[in-house]
């Protein structure tokens, strides 16, 4: 079975970029930061990362930047996700799973409404990365 080559990957990226140019974007960037320390990984952060990548791409949200960080000092509430975007307060959500990712994208990112039940307090600055 022939596997994808780097050249094919480059072409797929270029084809995608052309499509992006024709889509309407929000114009400003949305940052999704996923905690990927030992605690996050043990609690399932990799499935959350996977779900964010798949759903953001599926919904055509092209102005979102997905990043990983280490332990945020919130091991009790992993997997954690921080969403920073214009028009919304920087918010950390805890105990996130793949199902909640859908809700976060639909309600927080697209609907600009906080998703209750999963918001957690930001830890003291001295234990943030």
């Amino acid at each position, binding site marked *: *079975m022939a*596997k*994808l080559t*780097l*050249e094919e*990957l*480059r072409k*797929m*990226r270029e084809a*995608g*970029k052309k499509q*992006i140019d024709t889509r309407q974007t929000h114009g400003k960037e949305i940052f999704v930061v996923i905690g*990927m*320390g*030992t*605690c996050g*990984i*043990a609690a*399932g952060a*990799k499935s959350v*990362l*996977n779900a*964010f*990548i*798949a759903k*953001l*791409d599926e919904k055509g*949200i*092209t*102005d*979102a*930047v*997905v*990043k*990983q960080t*280490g*332990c945020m*000092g919130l*091991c009790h509430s992993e997997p954690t996700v921080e969403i920073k975007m214009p028009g919304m307060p920087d918010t950390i959500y805890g105990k996130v799973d793949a199902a909640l990712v859908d809700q976060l994208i639909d309600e927080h990112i697209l609907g600009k409404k906080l998703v209750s039940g999963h918001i957690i307090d930001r830890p003291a600055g*001295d*234990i943030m990365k």
Partner: protein
Amino acid sequence: MHHSIGDMIADCLQNSVEANASRIVLTVSETPQWLDVRIEDNGKGMSDEEMKRATDPFYTDGVKHKHRKVGLGLPFLIQTVEATDSTWNLRSKKGEGTILSFRLNLRHIDLPPVGDLPLAFFSAMIFDGSYELVIHRSYNGSCETEYTVTRSELKEALGSFEDAEALALLKQFLTDQESDIKEIKNGEINTGRTAQNARSREKTD
């Protein structure tokens, strides 16, 4: 304990990134019996004393996690190794880098599933920074196959690792590279023809 071997590999790779390595080489070689993993980085390295502490679950350096009393990355791995007749080795030199290697016994009933290795590789690729990550992956069972992926080449092909579309393509690419190995392993499971079974059949014939 981590849910899968992929999680353990991702965790150890994150240690290398956090040790400010500019080059990390991951080798994952698999047979039906063994999974050999080696992570070599040129990060800040550890002294003998620090190495001893890194394997202690009730110790963390106080820099990476202030006010926290535990560091569980390596201890999770060691716990798994000790429970499954496997082996591990850690070598490090302060200021030069670290080599972590482990050989896991895939036939041990207590070994967690291997899990989604392309997802672990993907996660290790997209940390911030300009580090190089080279991944050599091979399988030697009823057939032999291997592939190598390099972070700088992938980043150059995609332009960046930030927007969701680039990340989705990266994930797709890494999953695709693993497809041959997946196919061979599925074939071995379906026919019961693992390399080990084949060898034991030869002996009895």
